[in-house]
């Protein structure tokens, strides 16, 4: 997923094409199976993206953070195949397909962001096909690495509480893993941020270079 910090897009001028929406913690933004008609830009908050398999198991696919776009996969006006839920109180801008057409005209480079976002998500899915049953460590590593990919500088703006909510792991499991990683100097915890010192160690944990 492309983060918009390193792009030349001026979102302030784009936001006028969208509608501002507020979502409370745990509120559903869109549900798997419902029809799509646009995408969202996250201004504030964290969004958990999950999917339900044919046997009814929920899988966390990704966590979307401010500055990212969300829900692009249903821009083709077909049903969403994921569910997006607000992890905490969030502010989003919604752009309908029609708004998107206008946006592309006003800011042609938005197409690149779009392509990059979809391609990055495809990589996440392709990995999922093989990383079927992940251990808690691997789950956590995937999520941290995916967020790192957006920020490039290996700083993850999440609290432990956010991670608990996002992964569905218990607070104790999470605490244990993070403690171990801290001892191994894989990461540092600074207040509401994680600093990943050895991303390669996390990648090793997954058995391959993910990104």
């Amino acid at each position: 997923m492309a983060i918009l910090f390193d792009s030349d897009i001026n979102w302030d001028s784009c936001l006028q094409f969208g509608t501002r929406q507020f979502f409370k913690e745990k509120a559903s933004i869109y549900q798997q199976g419902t029809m799509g008609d646009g995408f969202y830009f996250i201004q504030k908050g964290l969004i958990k993206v999950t999917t339900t398999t044919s046997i009814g198991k929920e899988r966390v696919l990704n966590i979307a953070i401010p500055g990212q776009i969300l829900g692009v996969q249903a821009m083709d006006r077909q049903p969403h195949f994921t569910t997006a839920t607000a992890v905490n109180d969030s502010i989003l801008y919604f752009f309908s397909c029609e708004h998107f057409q206008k946006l592309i005209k006003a800011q042609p480079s938005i197409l690149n962001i779009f392509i990059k976002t979809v391609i990055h998500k495809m990589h996440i899915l392709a990995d999922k096909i093989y990383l079927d049953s992940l251990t808690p460590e691997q789950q956590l590593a995937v999520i941290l690495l995916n967020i790192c990919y957006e920020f490039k500088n290996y700083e993850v703006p999440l609290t432990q509480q956010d991670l608990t909510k996002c992964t569905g792991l218990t607070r104790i499991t999470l605490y244990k893993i993070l403690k171990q990683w801290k001892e191994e100097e894989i990461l540092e915890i600074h207040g509401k941020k994680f600093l990943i010192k050895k991303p390669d160690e996390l990648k090793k944990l997954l058995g391959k270079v993910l990104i």
Partner: protein
Amino acid sequence: MKSLRYSWQPFLKYGKKLEFIENEIVYHQGSEGKGFFYLSKGGIKITLLSHEGVERTVNYVPEGMLFGEHGARNEPYLTSAISNCQSEIYYFSDEALVMICKEHPEAACIFTNSLIYKFRILAEIIAFLNSPIEQQMAHFLLKLVSENGNFSIDQTSFARYIGTSRITVNKILNKWKNQQWIQISNRTIDILEIDRLKELRDSSAINILNLDVLMLSN
């Protein structure tokens, strides 16, 4: 989704025509993206290689569709594409895409929709990962046939498509044959009882909604 097929045809003049013989690699997983392709004639198989070296077929590209869109913007190719038979392909560079979108703004939507469609194919495989093999086979067989007409595929290739062994595929195909749901001749599988296969496909605890939208035509 139907509308995707052949929708890129008006822009072929911006591409470069290439000829491939059978079993030639069009692009290789992990190599740097140099652009994307359009299948004009022939057949292309898309495969995904895991880090353990297990190869899985993720798609058979029907004629009139784009493929390798994930190689746009220098992104590494996510999959490999190999010709099934002699094929006529058009190649488009990033510059060509920019040019097409500039002169034909509607092309941007066709391209993103096509890319999203590939994204959906991956999501579809994930959705079926934990389903019984028989159910997966029913789904992917219905899909192959609806996208390509009667589809010629050997059991080993089919097994790679489902991500299982040839023996399992053989057992289930024989079972369906005995129930007279399908007929097998010369590597071609003909569906006799399409409703039975659909029933089987939909027989999970949770129905995946709108499965048919994942198919190009019905």
